């Protein structure tokens, strides 16, 4: 089966510089703002609901339904906040809009703000994205100069300001309430929910937080209609999605496919298959927090329900592939250190537990763990799971639980051999592994 790719969101390779406002407008850009104005807020929200636009930030919550949570009777200002923190390991999609097609995001922000009656929007971009911050600011300034933003929007009497707000190097600020704390100038420590941001969000006001790709989809849904959009996806999970493939594949990269495209086909056909033609050992389907799949479990449709059915998550569609010859304990070690490093430290199970996980995985990998430590590792992960303020706790626990569930023998082998069975070459990514043919990802 040949995989179908689409190019509605991902418009690379068309010989156009989409950052340029005139180029963007010549291709019909900002027309959806006019159409949304004619439709009116209620109809726009209904169209987004009908389009089944599920949040692209990882949790998959339907955007139209979230928008409906804003209180109708509050006289406080309302805010739209865009989550451009893009920190989930394996995820590199929102960067595309910020760097190459920022007007698509801005157009989505304008339509959403008019529908939500919000007159200010903050785009929270991770601090490492210096170029993306510059490019997005430039696009915003071009909009002000062209009368698309400011006191009125393209002649529509609706005042709107959009600002970029920089992050400063903390993964936890991708969690929506930590992001709000950070936006307010505080350390990024997640808030207890409720109250939900739709009721009390930024600056004590009702706030909608959406991922970049979610909002970038909105102009397309308005321009072409919900029916067109859902036809590019599946029932209750509409539209195409950006899918990133990294790790051990021949052609890593970012692709756009209709929701429901088969995961295995994406890896084999779009990403060129596993590196060096080896067998696939493990696949993380949607960012590092998802449960891992074995190579024989990847024949599944990429939908929220499809991945749930095999015990994982569609998440951010950031696919990480590992071929045979990769040490699974070493792979987990990377992630456990990541979560230990990024825990904000405000709840004990996460603060202590993530550190403990990292140390245990270190000992397992080094071969200094004791008999029984695989169970200890699981116990610690189970202690964290479900006992924390935010989902970073689960994000740290799920990889541990699933790597052990699927590759327990390999953990045990590290204990029995007093060291890594792969020796000094725990990854075949371009380097020699004893007993395996060498491959180069850079050849």
């Amino acid at each position, binding site marked *: 089966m040949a995989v179908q790719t689409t190019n509605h969101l991902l418009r690379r390779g068309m010989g156009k510089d989409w950052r340029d406002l005139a180029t963007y407008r010549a291709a019909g850009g900002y027309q959806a703002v006019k159409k949304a104005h004619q439709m009116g807020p209620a109809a726009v929200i209904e169209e987004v609901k009908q389009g089944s636009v599920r949040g692209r930030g990882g949790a998959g919550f339907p955007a139209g339904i979230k928008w409906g949570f804003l209180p109708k009777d509050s006289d406080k200002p309302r805010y739209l906040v865009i989550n451009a923190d*893009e*920190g*989930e*390991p*394996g*995820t*590199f999609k*929102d*960067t595309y809009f910020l760097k190459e097609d920022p007007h698509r995001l801005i157009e989505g922000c304008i339509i959403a703000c008019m529908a939500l009656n919000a007159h*200010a929007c903050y785009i929270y971009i*991770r*601090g*490492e*994205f*210096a*170029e993306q*911050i*510059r490019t997005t*600011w430039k696009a915003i300034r071009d909009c002000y100069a062209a009368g698309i933003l400011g006191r009125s929007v393209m002649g529509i009497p609706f005042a709107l*300001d959009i*600002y*970029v*707000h*920089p*992050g*400063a*190097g*903390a*993964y936890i600020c991708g969690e929506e309430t930590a992001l709000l704390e950070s936006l*307010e*100038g*505080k*350390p*990024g420590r997640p808030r207890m929910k409720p109250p939900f941001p739709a009721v009390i969000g930024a*600056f004590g006001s009702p706030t909608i937080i959406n991922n970049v790709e979610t909002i970038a989809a909105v102009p397309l849904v308005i321009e072409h209609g919900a029916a067109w959009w859902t036809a590019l996806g599946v029932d209750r999970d509409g539209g195409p999605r950006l899918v*990133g*493939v*990294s*790790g*051990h594949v021949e052609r*890593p*990269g*970012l692709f756009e496919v209709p929701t429901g495209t088969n995961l295995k086909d994406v890896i084999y056909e779009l990403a060129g298959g596993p590196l060096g033609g080896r067998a696939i050992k493990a696949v993380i389907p949607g960012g590092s927090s998802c449960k891992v799949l074995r190579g024989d479990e990847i024949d599944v449709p990429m939908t929220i329900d499809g991945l749930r059915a095999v015990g994982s998550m569609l998440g951010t569609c*950031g696919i*990480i592939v*590992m071929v045979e010859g*990769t040490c699974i304990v*070493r*792979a987990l070690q*990377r*992630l456990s*250190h*990541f979560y230990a490093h*990024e825990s904000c430290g405000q709840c004990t199970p996460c603060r202590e537990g993530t550190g403990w996980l990292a140390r245990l995985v270190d000992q397992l990998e080094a071969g200094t763990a004791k008999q029984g430590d695989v169970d200890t590792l699981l116990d610690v992960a189970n202690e964290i799971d479900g006992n924390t303020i935010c989902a970073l706790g689960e994000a740290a626990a799920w990889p541990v639980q699933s790597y052990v569930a699927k590759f327990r023998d390999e953990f045990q082998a590290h204990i029995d051999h007093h060291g890594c069975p792969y020796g000094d070459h725990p*990854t075949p*990514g*371009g*380097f020699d592994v004893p007993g395996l043919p060498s491959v180069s*990802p*850079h050849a």
Partner: protein
Amino acid sequence: MALAFSPEADREITDIIGRYPERAAALIPVLFVAQDEFTYLSEEVLELVAERLDLPAAKVLNTATFYTMLRKAPVGKHHVQVCRTLSCYLRGADQLMATAQRKLGIAPGETTGDGRFTLEGVECLAACGTAPIVRINDVYHENVTPASLERLLDALASGKGEPVGGGGGD
């Protein structure tokens, strides 16, 4: 002499303050402006920011210490950040770190004696599709190999490398 912002930085700070309904929200972007101006956030600089934003010094310190990109100590002219997270690891990030350590003669977290290079391991930079990634100051280098990293470091050492900017703020 007391520390002061340049007129350009001061204008930028006024502009930043105008973006938010609360002054405290300007803190992180203003800390980036201060970092660009004074290279790092010394106690004195934090006090200056607190004064300029009319915020308690403790609040400014509390925020500044939470974020890794807000530097509380000087870094080298070339801040070499090797991504060590999974996708980069799978494409050879450890070999890049080893190359950088050997070339620069320092361990991660250290700065060379002449103050020119700081080496650091960092977490996923959201460019996993072109892994492995090395970020030098604010520029991403993609699909880096040990050989290309060696060339890059040589070029920077000889002053021929591209000039690259500082912090992440606007």
